[in-house]
């Protein structure tokens, strides 16, 4: 599918991208080892390009102003060689990509651009940073806004570049969380020796232990019943809470049926697991958006974000064109209701004035065409 079909709109978008690239330098780590792919009409119209330096790369951007620009997560001895086998693979960055919320949630979804979904994705992204830094101990996590719906996380150390596909899959599965966390020694349906995480456990087990421990410590009889303990069981459990907590510390969870704990675990996993696009992580020859470049489906910049500043990142930080004054005229192709880049309600085929940022956003999304360029031109 073409992102910007309308010829005049396309020329306008490209002209604006060109102005941006004339004033902004991109910097790609190990630029001479990467394959590049570019697109004007779709994400990748052609690939197998290579550049010796960032200066060469920037000159290319200034001359061609591509709407889409990607580089390989892989490093090659001969990045422009083809077919792929002739490139000589030298390792691949580890990349995680999240572009939709891990879980469905009730909201009024905006098909053009959903700010609420983006908010959820950002929250999930903060969890990913925690997993990468706190659990995996990865240093040098580089985060960038994808330029559209989510975030990319790049790890580029030498030891990480040697990880196999299987190892990468293990990492994505860790982010989702284990299916179950208990080991049951059941007999005739009775949980005789249910074992689970203890105070000394680490990883997901420890996170769950802390969560369950805090829940039990504070739970009322009513709350225990809500989680599935029935009648007197809940009351007995409540009365023996102190002992239960002591046993939990040792990894013994037998004082309630497994399905009670499973319910608490399912709730915990639902809150803490994160789903990334595993294809991106597993594909060792993936082309991924160049951090800092513009996204041809939004006109937004794929901004680099300090991992610690992720909570403060707002979509407006990625807007690089004027978002204030209404300077251009566009013709909506459909009825449009938007919260971002600005609040807009537009009727199909009714010309309207919008800001440059919104106009580019709508043209890039293929939802409006250019009628009249900036007033001052």
């Amino acid at each position, binding site marked *: 599918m073409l992102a910007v079909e309308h010829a005049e709109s396309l020329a306008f978008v490209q002209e604006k991208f060109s102005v941006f690239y004339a004033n902004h330098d991109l910097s790609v780590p190990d630029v001479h080892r990467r394959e590049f792919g570019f697109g004007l009409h779709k994400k990748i119209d052609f690939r197998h390009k290579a550049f010796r330096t960032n200066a060469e790369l920037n000159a290319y951007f200034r001359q061609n102003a591509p709407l889409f620009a990607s580089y390989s997560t892989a490093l090659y001895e001969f990045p422009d060689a083809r077919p792929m086998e002739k490139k000589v693979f030298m390792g691949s960055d580890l990349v995680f990509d999240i572009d939709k919320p891990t879980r469905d949630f009730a909201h009024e979804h905006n098909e053009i651009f959903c700010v609420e979904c983006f908010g959820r994705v950002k929250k999930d992204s903060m969890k990913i940073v925690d997993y990468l830094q706190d659990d995996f101990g990865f240093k040098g996590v580089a985060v960038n806004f994808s330029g559209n719906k989510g975030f990319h996380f790049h790890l580029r150390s030498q030891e990480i570049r040697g990880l196999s596909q299987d190892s990468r899959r293990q990492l994505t599965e*860790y982010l989702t969380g284990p299916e179950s966390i208990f080991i*049951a020694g059941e007999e005739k349906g009775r949980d005789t020796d249910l074992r689970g995480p203890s105070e000394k456990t680490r*990883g997901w087990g420890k996170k769950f232990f802390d969560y369950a421990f805090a829940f039990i410590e504070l739970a009322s009889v009513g709350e225990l019943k809500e989680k599935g303990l029935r009648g007197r069981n809940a009351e007995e459990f409540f009365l023996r809470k102190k002992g239960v907590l002591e046993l939990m510390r040792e990894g013994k969870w037998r004082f309630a049926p497994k399905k009670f704990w499973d319910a608490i675990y399912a709730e915990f996993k639902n809150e803490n697991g994160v789903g990334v696009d595993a294809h991106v992580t597993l594909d060792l020859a993936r082309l991924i958006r160049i951090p800092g470049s513009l996204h041809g489906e939004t006109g937004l910049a794929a901004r680099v974000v300090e991992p610690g500043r992720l909570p403060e990142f707002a979509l407006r930080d990625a807007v690089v064109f004027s978002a204030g004054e209404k300077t251009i005229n566009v013709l909506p192709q459909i009825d449009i209701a938007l919260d971002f880049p600005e609040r807009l309600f537009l009727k199909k085929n009714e010309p309207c004035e919008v800001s440059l940022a919104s106009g580019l956003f709508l043209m890039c999304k293929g939802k409006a065409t250019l009628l009249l360029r900036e007033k001052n031109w």
Partner: protein
Amino acid sequence: MEQKLIAKYPFLSFSKDFVGEGVSETDLKDAITFASECFQHDEHIARDAARESKNLLLSRLMLYSMSANFLRKFAFFKAREYARGLEKENEKVLFEVAKDFFPSLENADGGFKVSLIDYLQYGRSLPQANVSKGMVFFIGDDLRACLREAIQERISDSEKLSAKLPENIAAAALRLKEFIPRDFTPQFKGKLLQRSELQNILKGVGEGKRYYGSMALAIACVKDGLTREEAGDVMNSYVTNCPKGAHPFTPREGEAVLDWVYAHPTIGFSFNVLKSQGLVD
């Protein structure tokens, strides 16, 4: 100590120093015996470091030249044999062998810890692991289980093996072929595993269904009363038989499924579930 250790565990990386140069007819005869003993499940009496190192290397070369599948089977059986040996070893030997696979291995909190990067190469299922600040912590039993899979992976690693062999080794490979069983499918007399539906799954299923297939087999194993080790044999056959697809279904994935099912032995088995998963008609 080093020589003794290599004689018992010739898969260790410093076994290279003991292989020596040239391949005599005696070397080839010994290697054929070494590999065929493994396939016949005959007990192998380890000799010296040089002999064992050469036997293992020549066996791998000959088997890989015939079929990667033969090499994978050999690796599975041999790793099991070495893992049994390791069970009898004291912690010092275990540590020394494990260090060869996990260079970052250290004692910690009454158990062990390794770096996440090391663990990812040879460890077991990461989501279940005790991960913190880039280190993975485990106890001795977990380390032994990791080692069995690590040894299997190292023996079956064909990256540096050539399928084209010098004439004398190629001829020996043909002699070895006579000792290799035609069918590796483990035969267990369980109610479920004998069913044609399960036998078909055991022959391998396509991408998208491989996980479900492994679950079905694992549950059948537990219901049929197979030991965890016997179940490992069944799973290994299944993993080997599954097509690679865009990315392979790995022995580690199969083992993780077995671990889970054997930790939850009361899990139910249903042919209707197999139907809904598209595993049977």
